């Protein structure tokens, strides 16, 4: 376990190597990146084995702390330190695995693009940063990697920078998350002044021991959570995520499924003990999560871009995770379980969507349709992912959603439970809808349809792997299966806050959950498949304003754009005007003009006429003499 640092170190080294030498290597060095990801993945298993060595059911693994001081300045110390516990291990498994998958998939998907090697270079940096983020033992290192992840996402989303939309999306992603990061940074510094260190465990201990006043604790928690909101695209900082689909599809998978967006969830989970102590913090998390999850489900209803819908489904999922975290109790377990399985089925969804995109060069579902004939495997895999997303039994998503619903019901009561259930149902609707629009029905764009074909093995292998995991991933909740895999028990017994949680079916809950999901799916079939979507159109025609609002995503982008246009550019305009007119032209030039004006006037005393000059002399004498005589005279 002390060797955990090797896991991020490998992709970091790959990045450094490729940054300088990629163009000297064959194939622009893509294999280096893939091998690096593979190596990380392999090393992860060694670490895992080491961690699991000798722990039994109900025991927590002894966290390993490793690292060195990067910068020391009087009592101010910045460490590069690694902390490995169950939480980190779950995250590591997700990140290393998805990274490997995406690397493989990209070999096929990105073939022939410009800057092919650069893509893999950034990918490696991204993986390295994400792995370090997961392992960081202090907030500052976490923040550093947090930012690095952000910049990688900027570079990757903007990879097709020649598309204006990609450039804009990249910018938007970075700036929006940066807003959250601002709060995060402030929170970190506040925390530093409360406990005198950046160490996460020390902070949690101090919070639990009540060494931090409630006010500070709430402030710190909320500020850090705002950072999480930015990174995990929670309402109202969610706007960047759908746009981020401008990036290459594997990147979307990597960022939106497995890694960057769950960084916020991870951080909240990491600091959950502190959030629990802080007043209001958990409630805030819950409400933000709830808003996001319902909001995104609603917006997802009428979107037609495949990747965008998947993106909204991601928002939806992330919201659910925060709901789970905010619920308290076993929420951590539930959220992490969802995170774990979400990685598989969301990656699967994205990669399938990428496969469609790759094959048809179309992204809008309205131009597709009936593709199952041309791409049956993709259709099945996409459907699998969609079903998991919807929470259909017995796919992995079901188990996780079930857990979350259970937690919400236990901890927060029926109102919240009902709201979550609505979100689940809506999820069923839109995710089924997009699958229907894409793969079923009649082809709407014959040209695209004719050219469609199943993707090559490099892309299909990861998809199939992910499909299998989507199918079976949820089973890790069972104690027996967990023990078979070498864990002390099921997921809830491995990763827990206070006491290990045994998985059990609450049939009423299962019924509600599956019922809601199936209801949603059926509605989708009813409205969009039967009668080729005329019914949906009818419904839409009934309430056009509502449809418009949904299509335009509640106008939030427009509001923000207006904010930037009117507030930021307006402020810039005002400041520019002030700078030019007041500071420069009046203040600086004014002094100069005044001096020159004075010079201009004064120079006319030089009349050229001798008696005038003589007059100056006499006046000078008289003035001097008068003052002297008057002041001294007796």
């Amino acid at each position, binding site marked *: 376990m002390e060797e955990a640092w090797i896991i991020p170190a490998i992709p970091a080294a790959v990045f450094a190597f490729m940054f300088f030498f990629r163009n000297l290597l064959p194939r622009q060095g893509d294999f280096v990146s893939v091998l690096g990801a593979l190596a990380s993945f392999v090393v992860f298993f060694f670490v895992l084995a080491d961690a699991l060595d000798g722990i039994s059911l109900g025991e927590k693994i002894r966290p390993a702390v490793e690292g060195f001081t990067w910068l020391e300045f009087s009592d101010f110390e910045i460490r590069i330190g690694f902390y490995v516990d169950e939480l980190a291990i779950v995250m590591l498994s997700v990140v290393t695995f998805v990274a490997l998958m995406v690397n493989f998939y990209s070999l096929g998907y990105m073939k022939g693009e410009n800057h092919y090697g650069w893509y893999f270079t950034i990918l490696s940096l991204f993986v390295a940063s994400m792995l370090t983020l997961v392992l960081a033992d202090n907030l500052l290192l976490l923040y550093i990697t947090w930012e690095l992840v952000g910049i990688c996402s900027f570079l990757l989303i903007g990879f097709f920078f020649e598309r204006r939309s990609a450039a804009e999306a990249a910018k938007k992603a970075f700036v929006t998350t940066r807003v959250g990061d601002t709060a995060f940074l402030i929170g970190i510094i506040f925390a530093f002044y409360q406990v005198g260190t950046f160490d996460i465990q020390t902070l949690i201990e101090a919070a639990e021991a009540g060494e931090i006043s409630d006010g500070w604790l709430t402030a710190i928690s909320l500020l850090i959570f705002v950072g999480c909101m930015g990174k995990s695209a929670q309402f109202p900082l969610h706007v960047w995520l759908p746009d981020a689909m401008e990036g290459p599809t594997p990147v979307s998978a990597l960022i939106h499924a497995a890694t960057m967006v769950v960084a916020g969830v991870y951080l909240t989970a990491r600091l959950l003990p502190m959030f629990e102590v802080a007043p209001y913090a958990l409630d805030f998390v819950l409400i933000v999560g709830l808003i996001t999850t319902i909001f995104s489900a609603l917006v997802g209803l009428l979107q037609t871009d495949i990747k965008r819908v998947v993106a909204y489904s991601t928002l939806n999922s992330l919201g659910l995770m925060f709901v789970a975290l905010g619920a308290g109790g076993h929420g951590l377990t539930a959220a992490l379980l969802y995170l774990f399985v979400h990685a598989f089925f969301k990656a699967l969804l994205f990669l399938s969507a990428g496969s469609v995109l790759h094959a048809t060069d179309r992204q809008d579902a309205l131009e597709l349709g009936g593709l199952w004939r041309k791409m049956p495997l993709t259709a099945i895999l996409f459907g699998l992912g969609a079903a998991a997303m919807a929470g259909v039994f017995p796919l992995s998503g079901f188990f996780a959603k079930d857990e979350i619903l259970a937690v919400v019901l236990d901890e927060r009561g029926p109102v919240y439970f009902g709201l979550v259930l609505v979100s689940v149902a809506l999820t069923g609707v839109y995710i089924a809808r997009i699958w229907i629009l894409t793969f079923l029905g009649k082809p709407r764009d014959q040209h695209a349809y004719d050219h469609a074909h199943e993707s090559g093995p490099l892309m299909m292998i990861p998809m199939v792997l992910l499909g299998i995991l989507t199918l079976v991933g949820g089973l890790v909740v069972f104690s027996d299966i967990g023990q078979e895999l070498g864990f002390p028990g099921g997921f809830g017994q491995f990763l827990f806050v206070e006491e290990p949680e045994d998985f059990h079916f609450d049939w009423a809950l299962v019924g509600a959950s599956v019922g809601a999901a199936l209801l949603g799916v059926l509605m989708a079939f009813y409205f969009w498949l039967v009668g080729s979507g005329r019914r949906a159109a009818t419904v839409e025609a009934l309430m056009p304003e509502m449809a418009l609002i949904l299509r335009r995503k509640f106008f939030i982008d427009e509001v923000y754009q207006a904010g930037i246009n009117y507030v930021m550019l307006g402020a810039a305009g005002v400041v520019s005007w002030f700078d030019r007119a007041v500071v420069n032209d009046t203040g600086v030039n004014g002094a100069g003009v005044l001096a020159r004006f004075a010079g201009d006037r004064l*120079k006319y005393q030089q009349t050229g006429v001798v008696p005038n*000059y003589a007059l100056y*002399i006499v006046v000078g004498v008289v003035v001097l003499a008068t003052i002297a005589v008057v002041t001294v005279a007796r």
Partner: protein
Amino acid sequence: MNLDYSLLIPEYWLAALAALVVAADLTVPATHRLRIRYMSGWLAAAGMVVAIVVSIVPYLDTDKDFGGLISVDDYTTFFRVFFCGVTLFTILASMRYMEQRLSNPGEYYGLLIISTIGAIYMAAARELLTAYISLELLSFSLYILAGWSRTDLRSSEAGLKYFLLGAFSSAILLYGISMIYGVTGSTTYAGVASGLSGDVGDIETGMLMGMALLIAGLGFKVAAVPFHAWTPDAYEGAPLPITAYISATSKAAGFAWFLRLFSGAFMPIIDDWRWMIAALAAASIVLGNLVALRQTNIKRLLAYSSIGQVGYMLIAIAALSPDSAGALLLHLAGYAVTNLVLFTCAIAYHDETGVEEISGYAGLAQRAPFLALMMSVALFSLGGMPLFAGFLTKFILFQVAVEEDLLWLAALGVTGSFVSLYYYLMVIRQMYIEQGPTLVRLPFQPVMYGAIFLLGLGVMLIGLYPAPVYEMADDAAQVLFV
């Protein structure tokens, strides 16, 4: 009474030299004169070199007086060298100008040399009559020299204005001297001082009346506001070398007298006259620098800039102390050398092109890089930028003022110097930034360039290694306060 005439050898030599130059010019037939180019000039220059040697060698560490009227001490030696040096470089700078635009070289150089005597005696005098008559000697020469040019209408106008105002102001000066004589009963500086220090009661108004008049007269000589008005006109009208000479010698002589008189005679009542000088200084700084902002003629610009410079120097008089005297002498030395560089460059350019307007300097950096460079050096030095003399000398000057609690004046001086940088930069802009009408190189002028180079070295020397000059100045100043 000590009447050791050997103390006055340098001045006798100068008088003889003047006679020699005039006589040579008169006697050598015109046909020969053409063959020996610049004959009078070289003769005068060689004579000045001798004069410098004669001024230094026998009088190192001398401290004697001649009949109670003239002191020959370090201070006098300093100014002998100073004035002879200025005259020497003026002569060098005049040679070509004289040949091209003036006539009567013998008389011209003769008058220059004789005026040097006047300047020296102003510095050396310890008595008001001697000083006054020396002043007249210098002034008369300058009136004539200012109006020397026969081809330039402005020249005679300048001579007339300079003369009329000079006569007027010397009457005022004399009236002031008479009042001082009346109150103190003496015209020697020491006598005046003892007449004042014996005074236990209040100061007499008559004395102050006299001082006001005297300061007006001296202020005229050094061109302090409001007695400055002759300066721009005389500077512009006079032939360029004479402008240079006036700006260096006339001003320095005025201050030489100022220093010796005020330290020797008026030190006891410094608190009663300090404000007068301070007021003049402030007015000079403000007016000189502001009006200079709007000038287009290089001579006129330098005239106003010199008015501003006078303001700085007056600060040292207002803050009169042994330190300030040393600082003033150092500043005078730096200022004179700098000004000579500037004027010599201007003359060299004028000799080739006849240009006096600042806009005519456009493109000088490409036509004559050396001239442009040295001119920039001088301008930066005047503007008080480091590496050059101006920075250090002004720094010390203002520092001294602050030592004497004249912080406000020093601050005003620094501000004025800041403003002055603007118009100096405008000249530099013409030379370096603006494109000239032509890129043709100006021919090399060995004499001028040599002189400029030497003077430029002086500017750099004072700026970078001031210790020797400053020590000399300081030694000279100490004599005044024994």
